[in-house]
């Protein structure tokens, strides 16, 4: 049973504890509480009616499904990036390592413009898939910018550093003897990777996934340029909130905000519970 307070030679608990409550209240708890409060004043019927409107529902579905997909893709490829950056040494490694942070550091609008320019049908990469390209003659034209695919590209872009930076310290600490032990027991490399290495990395991978997902759901700046924002097709939920606010539909905006809050909270809770469970199994929480 944790005690609320035990006498200590290091003073300052009362002051800092009070500060934590004040700070978190002003910054996080009161604003979020207000959203929930306003939404609840709408009443369940209106809330339901707003959220099931076809454009609202499509926007929420688009935001969450693409964010989950982007986080999943980042989990896989971020693992490979982190693996290469920690396990091997090669010329240009530090440069490559630093470039992982760029999506963090760039203003999202800059990222949005850059991605749009590159992936637009006349951009460097976009033109490779545009009508008339080799790709188009074989598989048919593929439009990236101004479609959900473009949103996905932007979400992958901004999520990558979260996975890589979460995994790197864990990979550095990963005991090489585990892999050697597995090899002496006769396990081939793929078996060692899938049975020994990846399970050990799983909690950190989940954390990275959760962070990338959370960032993707809330992402606005880099997405709106590349999305095209076609209602019901490539319009993300955060943009819909802005649209509602511009139409002075505060109730609608609040309802969408509450739905996002609830969904994000549920997903992050699920991820955290899974992570805590796997960490405990690994013996971290001793």
């Amino acid at each position, binding site marked *: 049973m944790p005690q609320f307070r035990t006498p200590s030679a290091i003073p300052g608990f009362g002051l800092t504890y009070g500060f934590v409550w004040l700070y978190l209240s002003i910054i996080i708890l009161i604003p979020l509480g207000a959203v929930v409060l306003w939404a609840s004043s709408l009443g369940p019927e209106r809330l339901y009616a707003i959220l099931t409107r076809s454009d609202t529902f499509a926007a929420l579905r688009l935001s969450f499904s693409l964010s989950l997909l982007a986080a999943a893709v980042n989990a896989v490829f971020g693992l490979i990036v982190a693996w290469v950056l920690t396990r091997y040494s090669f010329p240009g490694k530090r440069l490559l390592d630093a470039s992982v942070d760029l999506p963090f550091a760039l203003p999202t609008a800059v990222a949005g413009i850059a991605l749009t320019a590159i992936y637009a049908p006349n951009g460097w990469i976009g033109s490779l898939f545009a009508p008339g390209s080799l790709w188009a003659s074989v598989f048919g034209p593929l439009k990236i910018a101004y479609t959900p695919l473009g949103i996905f590209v932007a979400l992958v872009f901004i999520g990558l550093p979260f996975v890589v930076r979460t995994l790197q310290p864990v990979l550095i600490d990963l*005991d090489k*003897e*585990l892999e*050697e*032990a*597995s*090899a*002496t*027991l*006769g*396990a*081939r490399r793929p*078996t060692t990777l899938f*049975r*020994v290495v990846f*399970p*050990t990395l*799983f909690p950190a991978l989940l954390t990275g996934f959760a962070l990338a997902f959370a960032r993707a759901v809330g992402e606005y700046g880099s997405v709106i340029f590349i999305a095209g924002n076609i209602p019901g097709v490539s319009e993300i939920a955060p943009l819909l909130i802005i649209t509602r606010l511009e139409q002075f539909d505060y109730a609608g905006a609040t309802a969408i905000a509450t739905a996002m809050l609830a969904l994000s909270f549920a997903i992050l809770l699920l991820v955290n519970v899974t992570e805590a469970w*796997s960490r405990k*199994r*690994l*013996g971290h929480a*001793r």
Partner: protein
Amino acid sequence: MELKIRNLRKDYGNFPALNGVNLDIRSGELIALLGPSGSGKTTLLRAIAGLESPDGGQIFFGDNDASRQSVQHRHVGFVFQHYALFRHMKVLDNIAFGMRHGQGPKQSEAVIRKRVLELLDLVQLNGLEGRYPAQLSGGQRQRVALARALAIEPKVLLLDEPFGALDAQVRKGLRRWLRQIHEETGHTTVFVTHDQEEAMELSDRVAVLHKGDLQQVGTPDEIYDSPATPFVYAFIGDSTSLPVTITNGAATFEGAPLSVGRVDPPDGPGRIHIRPQDVTLVAAGQGVVDGRIIGLRRSGPYRRADIAVGQHAHRIEALLPPELDVSIGDQFGLAFKRYAAFADDREPPKLGLAREKQAA
């Protein structure tokens, strides 16, 4: 399984970790690789396992050249100092790992489970198959690691400082127990240690390594009583030494003949090494040399005396019974029950430490 190591070389940059090592390991024996850190003992063990690729030489498992075989196909049991257990697996799955995912014939789960329970019984951890490694003590983890290595019926069992991470008490218990397991299972076992006491107590034979060279291989008695090189003499047990000049098998110390009998090394500058317990005090003028006590301290059941000998006050250490009435400044003659003579390598051996230069 009998092991033959032929002219094994491994360089790390310019630094030779193994300098052409030749070693025969007999089937069913328990052999220790002993040496200070950086002596190449772990590199040798890892090379046998295939975890290290040597730059030259061969390793034979029986008559089979295993030098080019992969780790997976060498079929060795390897126990790491820090256990290297798979933390996300229960004890049962850890031990079963090699049987499930190894290169051996596939077995049914029932057979595997039966074998795991037998091994748990052997390592005296009955009933713990459902635990995770995090729920075990250090000694228990190391026993699980050993059971896991034994589960694949290895051709040879290799242990890298297996007790290095454990408390002194646990270590002593596990030492006796490892010897017992060795006698029950009869696996050829090679273990690495820097602890000479552990090597002496546990093994049938000891191989002493220094700077990538094999210095001596022999039973603990041979290693202790007839060290082949000054390094072995200095590294195993305590010793101090006197510089002498050797002519025709007779030693002279500071111009006066030393009455120690015949010494073998080639003529020229040499050194006489003496262990503290082989020094006895006699009346001045009656011993091999005379000396003056310059320091006294208690050491377990004995008293250690530092004795200055000759014009340059060379320090000789003696182990004395505590009831002997001596004090600092007393003059005595020193008699040597045993000694060893080697050609000089200029640097006096430091107690228990690796020496920088080697005998010619």
